[in-house]
């Protein structure tokens, strides 16, 4: 049945007509205890959705819609390894990466948990060796710089998590510098190589397919740099200066990575869901394997909660369904991610990929065009900084925007530094103030009617607050798994496949058709007139050089 034909969908439409115009200040006025009714907690993670434009009936209807869409059945398919990535005929088993060692999950008559933990064990060996100063470069000096070369899921997740968990850095990591290099144009790697010591630099080449051109071109630049600086044989360089992480063992071998330096991925892990696998090696190098396993444990706790808890009390389900309400019934098409903690500065970029690459689709699982909105535009920035940038639009613009505030309740409490503790208090105060004004407008300070319009805040922007007790490996694991499952729930409602990304393929293909024309002095190009014009201009500039 088409989504828009479902009974709950129609009921939600009617409900939206009745209640959609209610202002959040009215909703708070009606029910002084909204927070009590509209917050959920899992371990130490608090999810406050009382500043959403909902009432009890909204929640009831949203849960009905989830049931009509057989969400429960889909969750089971997800966890049991059904090939729910139907366009590529694959399972999506990122949650399996978080299973404890003694559990079992049979896929194609094989218990995949043992393979996962074997790889974790191999990661542990690598991490311990590097932390002990016993991963040696070609000259025998210990490696002290790690360069992670990857892009998309092989970059955003590890980059975000390493930054987020930098306070949990283990002693062995203190002497290590971990650098992330992703851009195709070589600007990051070229800049860094100047200041790095080839004797002590180790490159991690992360690519699920090991064909990603961005990554391989950076890797080749690194190899060339090592060759020139070392005079060592290639065999030595491959053995001591590269670790490969990929699902394609053969391609890693072809590139030159020896067996002991290869870490396995699997087909059933999507790139943007892969920081829990060996792709997370830079995270483990930062926080140690104990920390990494804590992160997995936090995510696993969220997995169990998601799988077992009834919808009304289920954080990922409610986070997702409230998104559905905002997008499909209140017609909100923009979503801001606002962490109030500088360590979470890369969370917005990570979620941009997770949400928009997963659910930025307009064709249903059965290949039909769909007639409702899916993933909105998602962006964000560290909240206090964004206050000086785009909050103006949130407060007084014409676009309705839903906002996620992400903040830890405690920070610096063990630092013994009162100035920093005061800074955290200030940050918390700003976080609470902003979501309060966004939701309620200037009613919060009882502005009278004489206030000029340009000073007025109309409010009614729906806000969610996700509050962690503190940013630890465990709570961070919970948080990211929460968003992963939220994305999955929305895909189920929208009847789209969140695990493929065909929209990024054509660009690669067309780019290859442009390599040759760019290398010729007089292009025989026959593209659209814009492209032809641009090509001509580029070649004109290049002629000046030669």
């Amino acid at each position: 049945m088409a989504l828009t034909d479902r009974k709950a969908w129609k009921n939600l439409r009617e409900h939206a007509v009745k209640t959609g115009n209610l202002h959040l200040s009215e909703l708070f006025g009606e029910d002084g205890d909204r927070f009590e009714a509209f917050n959920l907690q899992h371990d130490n993670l608090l999810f406050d959705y009382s500043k959403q434009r909902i009432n009890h009936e909204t929640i009831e209807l949203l849960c009905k819609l989830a049931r009509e869409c057989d969400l429960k059945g889909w969750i089971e398919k997800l966890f049991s390894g059904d090939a729910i990535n139907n366009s590529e005929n694959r399972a999506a088993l990122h949650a399996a990466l978080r299973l404890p060692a003694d559990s079992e999950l049979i896929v194609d008559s094989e218990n995949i948990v043992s393979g996962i933990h074997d790889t974790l064990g191999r990661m542990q060996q690598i991490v311990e060796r590097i932390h002990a100063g016993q991963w040696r470069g070609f000259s025998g000096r210990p490696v002290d710089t790690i360069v992670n070369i990857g892009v998309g899921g092989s970059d955003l997740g590890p980059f975000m998590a390493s930054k987020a968990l930098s306070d949990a850095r283990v002693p062995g990591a203190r002497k290590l510098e971990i650098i992330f290099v992703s851009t195709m144009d070589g600007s990051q790697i070229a800049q860094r190589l100047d200041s790095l010591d080839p004797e002590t630099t180790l490159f991690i080449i992360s690519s699920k397919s090991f064909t990603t051109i961005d990554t391989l071109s950076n890797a080749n630049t690194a190899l060339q740099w090592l060759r020139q600086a070392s005079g060592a044989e290639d065999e030595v360089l491959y053995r001591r200066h590269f670790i490969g992480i990929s699902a394609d063992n053969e391609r890693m071998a072809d590139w030159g990575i020896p067996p002991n330096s290869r870490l396995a991925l699997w087909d059933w892990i999507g790139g943007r869901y892969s920081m829990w696998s060996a792709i997370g090696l830079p995270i483990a190098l930062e926080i140690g394997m104990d920390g990494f396993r804590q992160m997995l444990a936090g995510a696993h706790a969220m997995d169990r909660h998601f799988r077992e808890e009834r919808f009304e009390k289920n954080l990922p389900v409610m986070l997702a369904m409230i998104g559905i309400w905002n997008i499909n019934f209140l017609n909100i098409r923009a979503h801001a991610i606002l962490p109030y903690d500088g360590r979470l500065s890369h969370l917005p970029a990570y979620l941009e990929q997770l949400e928009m690459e997963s659910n930025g689709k307009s064709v249903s699982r059965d290949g039909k065009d769909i007639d409702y909105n899916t993933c909105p535009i998602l962006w964000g920035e560290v909240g206090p900084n964004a206050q000086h940038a785009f909050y103006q639009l949130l407060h007084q613009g014409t676009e309705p925007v839903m906002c996620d505030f992400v903040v830890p309740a405690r920070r610096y409490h063990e630092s013994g530094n009162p100035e920093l503790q005061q800074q955290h208090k200030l940050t918390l105060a700003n976080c609470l103030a902003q979501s309060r004004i966004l939701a309620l407008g200037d009613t919060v300070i009882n502005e009278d009617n004489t206030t000029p319009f340009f000073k007025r805040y109309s409010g009614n922007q729906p806000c969610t607050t996700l509050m962690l007790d503190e940013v630890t490996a465990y709570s961070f694991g919970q948080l990211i798994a929460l968003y992963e499952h939220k994305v999955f729930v929305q895909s189920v409602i929208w009847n789209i496949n969140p695990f493929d990304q065909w929209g990024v393929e054509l660009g690669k293909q067309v780019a290859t058709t442009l390599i040759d024309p760019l290398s010729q002095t007089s292009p025989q190009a026959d593209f659209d007139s814009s492209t032809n014009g641009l090509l001509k201009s580029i070649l004109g500039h290049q002629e000046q050089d030669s």
Partner: protein
Amino acid sequence: MKIAVWGDELTAWVTAGALAETGNDIAFVSNSQIDDPITLMGSSIRNEPGLRDLICNEVEHKRLRFVQTRTALGIQAHILSMNPNQFDEAHDIVEQLVRKAEGPLLIINQSHFGFGATDRLQALLNRRKKQIVVYFAENISEGEALDRIRNPKSLILGSDDEAATRTLEALFKPFSAQLENRFVMTPREAEFTKLAIIGMLALRIGYTNELANLGEQLGVDIDVIRRGMGADPRIGRHHLSPGCGFGGNNFPQTLKSLARLLSENNESTLMQTVLQENENQKELPFRKLWQHYKADLHERKIAIWGASFKPGSASLDAAPSLRVIDAIVAQQAEVRVHDPEAHENVHHIYHDNPYVKIINGKYDALKNVDALVLLTEWPEYWSPDFELVRKQMKSPVIVDGRNIYDRDLIESRGFTYYGIGR
């Protein structure tokens, strides 16, 4: 003179033995239930040449006995021969002495607690009651400790009390046969002089190693260079031998405190650099091995000759061998260690590491190995039967961390040779 000796360092034992031998009544403070001197000394100290016999003899003649703290607190003269990091305990002892003593006290501090420590202890005492702390810059060196204390060439006393100076001079009078210089200065000056001497020696070693590493890259033999340098009377020959780094307990600890003084007061990183480079130098033999085997030592067997930080000592304190062994076993390669004295200490550290084998005979250690790494220049390693050496080894590769072998000679016998700076 009746003297209590505090501390369980080599210096404490050597000082106690030497002073007992010259007729003093030594109370060695030990709160252990054991009174067998050999057990009390522990393996690294009892192997110090001549020391075991001396101590046993003095105990037998009752010039040296072991006493509890309570008894020692009743004595007037004290020697503090403690580890550089035991200042708090020394402080505690002096406080207890002050509480107990009505009259004069003489405390001789010969521990390297760093600059200003003697004055800090003096501040606890009452100078009017003739309670005095002096500093004695000992010059003891493992392997030749007894000789150093019995026949010093110079004495540096840090004392600003004449009576105390006279007592101290009398105490050390029996050891003045070869004495060329005697200096009395303030305790702070004496502590500083001690630091300055140690720092200078370290600089010489560090500088020589730097030159050796550079010479290696430029194809120049450091052995030739250092002989030329040493012939210059302004420089002299001592402490110009390149090698795989210095270790030990007191020497590096004293250097660390000098490095701290320099960086805190002067923002100078000179000594820190010397110490850091020394740590790097300790790994040099490993790196030679690593490069020889193209960065792959997995499942190889490596013999090590000499584990103690220097010949004549069983101590592994900060020894280069620790760094080299750790580096080799981290590659899952087997290490076969031989040392004339240090087996017990090697066992203590590595007994549960299956990759470390302690071998009794030096030639047995070479059985089937891919290389021999020499780290401590014990006399018995200087002139081995190279024919037998080569026969035992799987691959005739020698890494000479102390430059004791003649390169041409070794190579002419079919070995691949790596030295330091050659």
